[in-house]
């Protein structure tokens, strides 16, 4: 599988976006607890 096709398969995989969204929440939380 070529790199381009591989990347397209990953980016169009709905399962990929769930951990990414959770990661964004985690980083936001880290900023909050560090400031308090």
């Amino acid at each position, binding site marked *: 599988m070529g790199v381009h096709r*591989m990347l397209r*398969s990953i980016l169009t995989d709905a399962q990929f976006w*769930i*951990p990414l969204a959770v*990661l964004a*929440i985690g980083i936001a939380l*880290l900023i909050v607890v560090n400031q*308090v």
Partner: protein
Amino acid sequence: MKSRSLHRLGVACGLAAGAWLGAAEAPNKLVAAGFSPFLISLGMVAGVFLGRWTLPAMLKGSAYLISDIRRTPHLSVWAILAGVLWAVANTLTVFAIKNVGLSIAFPLWNTNSIIGLLWGWLLFGELRGAGRAQWTKVLGGAVAIMSGAVILAYASTTSAASSRSAGIGILAALGAGLLWGTMYIPYRKAYLSGMNPLSFVTIFTFGELATVLSLALIFDGGYQSVLAELRQARPALFWLLLGGFCWVLGDLFQQYAAKYIGISRGIPLSNTNQLWGLAWGALVFGESSGTGAFVRLMTIGGSLLMVAGAAAVSFAEAPDAENAARKRAMERESRRYGLDLARLEASIEGEDSLEHAGHRRSLLDWLVAVAAAAIFLWAGILARPQPVAVDPAWIFVLVLATLGTLAGGGFLLWRRTRFS
């Protein structure tokens, strides 16, 4: 019969993971000695990095790992993402421990089993087609875990110095649970795609180390400040590296549990680390002394409720219908990423298709091992006793018990799967 022996193997790996993940949290107590949470996390992850390179290289050899990674290159992206999730969650746990204590924070972030269970069911067909008895065990266990978490959260608000810091601690611990529960999506995806857990963790560790280093640089006052703190923390570095190394052993067992019994069962089992964490916190560090009897009772009751829930979940062995659902999830990966379905099936049954490819340990593998040992030795020479009171007798007992799980789990894995 085959699936039953794999179920037992997965259960053994989950329990061994609990022991080692619990032991790994003990060095985090050094937060009390005044180091920043980011530095503690960085020190621990440095130990993790050493372990995650050394153990796979020693068990299988780097040539084997490279061949395995080349078969499923797309999983490298997933492994790095999982590493980033782990690192952010790990840093959150340091804030949690600082604000509410290890024995309270531990069970709270262990709600990751509920999150993992949800993802396992939703994305990978876990528990699909399972009978009423299995569902009762799993749902009953899930409710028990949640109830235990609520009791412990209540206990923490009555015992902590201020409700504000307790709130921050609880938020950080629950956030870590969310991230760690979601981190199992890449884990399960990798094992449904036939990857060896040893290859997965080797890539995973890049995302992990890069993130922790970035967090330390961003939040801890930049490069100069981190370097100065590292110099100051040198006498404690050995303990942090050791904590990270223990974590690697726990995580490896956890990876094998996720592979052989799935995430909805594997996570609750490895979450028995909560019990080990409680033992380290209370017996070695004397955390429970000085709190009221009622608060102590709530802490123990809440923890036991969570463990009972986790046990109920883990005794639910997957029936045939559920295995068929797992196969459908595997077919999805096979179609999307062009993988050979027969190889994926063989891999999840514990067979190692690269076993006869003639991969041997190279000079590079031995160099990696020697370098890691030298770093540990260097940190060990610099190590000084930390200003934290500990009970040596309990340390001996807990170390012995933890080593027992390593010997047992390692032997079973080698005999059944040759670490595949």
